[in-house]
């Protein structure tokens, strides 16, 4: 039953992906994959947003682990989502306002930040204080 469900989700996601093409900006695509967002703190002008969406940092790394020189396109992301439908996460971030355009921009920034963290996480930090002699 569970397998059947996964296959169904994969088919739906694949079909959804087929409707895309690389003319669509990738940030629009990422935003479309997100569930409805929730505003959790509106006490000041900036608002805190929570939204569940694919774990893009993980998905991009999955794609690159298969082929380190692969280009990250919407098709590649769609395929990765279909292969790992459970790879979702809850994003929490701050938006300048409750306007949807602002929230989308903040969401995109959050994904970019997490990708940057993923990239830096792959870095080794060697530090050895010496005069080199």
């Amino acid at each position, binding site marked *: 039953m569970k397998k059947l469900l996964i296959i169904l989700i994969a088919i739906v996601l694949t079909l959804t992906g087929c409707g895309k093409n690389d003319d669509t900006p990738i940030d629009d695509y990422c935003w479309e994959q997100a569930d409805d967002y929730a505003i959790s703190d509106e006490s000041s002008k900036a608002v805190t947003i929570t939204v569940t969406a694919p774990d893009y940092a993980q998905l991009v*790394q999955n794609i690159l682990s298969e082929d380190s020189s692969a*280009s990250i396109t919407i098709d590649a992301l769609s395929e990765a989502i279909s292969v790992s439908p459970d790879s979702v996460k809850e994003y929490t971030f701050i938006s300048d306002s409750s306007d949807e355009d602002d929230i989308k921009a903040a969401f995109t920034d959050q994904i*970019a*930040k997490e990708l*940057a963290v993923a990239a*830096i*996480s792959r870095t080794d930090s060697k*530090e050895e204080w010496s*005069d*080199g002699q």
Partner: protein
Amino acid sequence: MKRLICLILSVIILSSNAIPASVSATNDSANQNHVLGLQAYLDTDNDEYLLRNENYAYWGLIEDFESDIVKWELLNTIDSLIHCGTEPDVQKYTEVLVNIIATYDRDNATAISEQHKNDNKKSALDYAMDISKIGADAVGLMVSTDKSAGDLEKWISIAVSGLSTLAGNVDNWIDALSDLETLVQNYAHYDTFLALIQEESSGDLKIAASNLRTSMAKAMQIKLDSYTNILDENFEQYGEFFFSDVFFDALKLTSEYDSDENLKFFIDCGSKFADKINEYFINQKKAWDLGIAIGTLVGNIAVGGEDIINRLHELMALRDIGDILCEELSRIGSNYDTGEYDSIIAEKYFTLSHYLIGCRIRGEYCRYSIVASDSGLRSKFSFKNAEEAAKWYEEKCAKILAIQNSIKTACNAILVHVETSGYEVGELSEWYIYDESGSLCSNYTLRITSKEKMHIGAIIADDFTQPLEYVITTSDPLLLELDPGYWYGFEIVDNANTENILLFTVSVNQSSEGLIDMIEIHTDFCAAIQSETDPLESFIQNCDSRYFSVADISNFDENDCLYARNAIFAKSGWIFSNQELSNYFQKYSWYNPTVTADEFTDAMLNQYQIANRDLIIAFESGIEAPSANNTVYSNEDDNLLIIDRFTSWYRLGTDEYCYHIPMISLNGHYDYLINDRIYNQFYPLWENRVEQHYKEYGYPELSEIVYSLGQKDDLLSIVFQTSATMWDESSFYVYTISTETGEEVPFSELYRCYGLTESGFFDLVKSTMQKYWDKQIIDLAPNIDAGLLQGVIDKTLSADNVRTAIPYINKNGELCFVGRIYWIAGADYYHHLLNTSGYVDEGWIECTTDHSAN
């Protein structure tokens, strides 16, 4: 140059009523000081510390980053999302260059203030000579670049002519001229730096350097042109800082601001810096501190906020600029020879070193801010929390600032100098010896300690066996005759303090027609050189500027400890009632006894002095400790110990038990710093845990406290772990320290000790966690949903989680680790101490103290 000299002469004429009657021709030793200072600096390790890229974590991070295609693809994806570019662009390079230059502008504030004090003592003639020399030096520094040197010469001449309108008012005239001196000096430095970057770079960095150079030249021209309007009423606006708000406000009103895009970008960038810096340092009366505040505040003003991608680009820019500086400094340093006397080269070296220091501090700050703001990265880079990352940055700043200080010392230390009336073969020459304040010395002994024949640069004979000695007790010039073709060694001893010695040598060229070359070394340099080999001298000189470890003072005897401990207070001006100590510190030029015991407070000590004072005190008590072995913990101090593990629910009450944190004793000495750190981190945590439990349940309790020690080879691991209740997440600290130095070592040392690489260690962690779950699953599987169980196993074995594991050595000398095991109830995960067989490590130390007696 002719134009400049003519104008200087015109200023002299305008001010001729202020010229003193008798001034003999002098050899200014300032240039020689730079030459000698550079030689002394190159003889230390500090230049190597500065130039060695591997010493800097930001450099390693960005080098490693760029060598991995996957990371580039991740950056490409980020670029697709937010269109930030994968590399720094012209604007980013420009911002980073402005940051480095503006920081240097302000960092000169102290030197400028000192210079102004001295300037007020100068006569008009002195001033005219100064501006002539500085203008010539500035042009000389820039002469190898391009036509900008000629432009500067023209602009200075316009500015100086403007100053003639102030000549009637000597005070204002001097202030304005003093500011002009500084401005010209600094501008020459900026242009030298930008010219180098422009010449040695390519692509966007080259364009940025070129644009910035052109824009700054335009701004400088506008600034110097404005001197034609200088009046008594407005002279204060002609300040010494290039990056001043008044100046940038004026620039915004020019037509060029609207018509020149590059100039506008520079003015906006510089203006932002000037406004903020004034607000912060002047309105809030904060002191300028090149280190932490500059890495943070100044950099952020010029280059932007804490955005991680912004930081990555800045790191790339800093690496590119730093690489060019390193290469040039290495080239100058390796070819440098005081025999080829060239003060311009020495000045260039110091200037570029300052800019490289700026790159290093800012680079380490960017790396720190990236890592500290993300928990995953903190863990990846071995920081347990943001505070620990901040401490790393502070310590790194202290190391870089020690280099900065040594550069400043090399530039400025030679204050005592010797002047002669010029030398004619076969005739007596007049020698004037000046002290640090510029006054003629009148109570000294001059010795000629050696006289050696020169032959094509080599010494072939030493025919001077008995030192010649002249005891001088007046300020009359000393009359000397030197033979051409010889090297002379001189020694000048202050008769009031015979340890105050100035050493210098003189060579009289074989074909001399009246000129001599002198090399001199100030007493501070003698002390600095001595401190390289004398640990006590090093401690005394540096106890207020860096942290010392037990290894640094391991050979101190009781007397050394006495002087070292009191040097910390002497640095703050303590007036010693003990005559011996008072005499001892009088020999140091920095000792200024002004604070009585009643007036003294700890607030007069800086962080280094406090830490070093405590280190010495702890070390002195360690010397007296009867037991001295390498690795055992001791628990003599009943007020502080905690060594128990409580495996069951445990009621805490001060009337029932006492608790201990052991002191670690290494090589017979208590290493204060590591013990202090353990105590300060663990004790508050433990108290918070108890308090947390008390607030929640109404009574204090701890679920467990673990303390363990283990050693392999020269490494010692100490583990603390505690939790308030059975179900909350535990907290732990792991310290791995070198038993040789008492200092913490990176995890890589531990991996090395067990023949592992970092990735090998994490593979081991993963397989161990798998073994752990293989054992657990046998009991859990029948009762718990398989999907739920698999979920926590997967989370435990995920790469991200595996990489949070912290290695340590258990009491059997085995490699173990603290790892996060995800769980199905309670906290998300618990920290487990696991050995490589997948069992919980039970290597903790059982307390042997009889608590029931309390």
